[in-house]
């Protein structure tokens, strides 16, 4: 599969952003006491993990 260059760059950009988000959510979750907030953060972690897997597959497709 061949993607346009700007698309790959855009995905790269999102992957970098999401990587920091996921790292932050994972570490910050340990600091939180409120259960509801903990749940939301866990959900964020799950969603971000799935999204990052999507990016990884696109990016490895883009690599020639």
């Amino acid at each position, binding site marked *: 599969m*061949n993607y346009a260059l*700007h698309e790959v760059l855009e995905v790269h950009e999102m992957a970098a952003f999401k990587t920091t988000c996921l790292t932050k959510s994972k570490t910050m979750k340990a600091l939180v006491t409120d259960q509801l907030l903990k749940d939301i953060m866990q959900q964020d972690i799950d969603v971000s993990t799935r999204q990052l897997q999507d990016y990884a597959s696109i990016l490895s497709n883009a690599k020639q």
Partner: protein
Amino acid sequence: MNQDYLDPINALHVPELADTTFAMDLLLRAKEGVRNIAIALTESASPDVRTLLRKQLMLGIAMHQEITELMINKKWFHPYELSEQYKLDQLSANNTLMIGKMNLFPVETNRKGMFDRTPDEH
């Protein structure tokens, strides 16, 4: 540059030039629209505002996709062949610069007299 704007040679390639420009304008507007609505969504708290904006966001993304595909099909837009795109970019920039240098409206454009006040105001 040919200063005679009525010279028929100038009519060559005008449809392509016009349509690529308008299509590009439509594409940029669609893009800008999606971004505007996304930003508005991150600022809205009322549930019905959010529902409406979300619907329009999806429509905007679909419209953007349609314009992109149309432009690719018509060969007005080459996201996958960057040097093709480069040629188009330079061409339309040059053509538009040429138009920019034209003295298109040599006579007075103030048409206020045509929209004058109602008769009984005199």
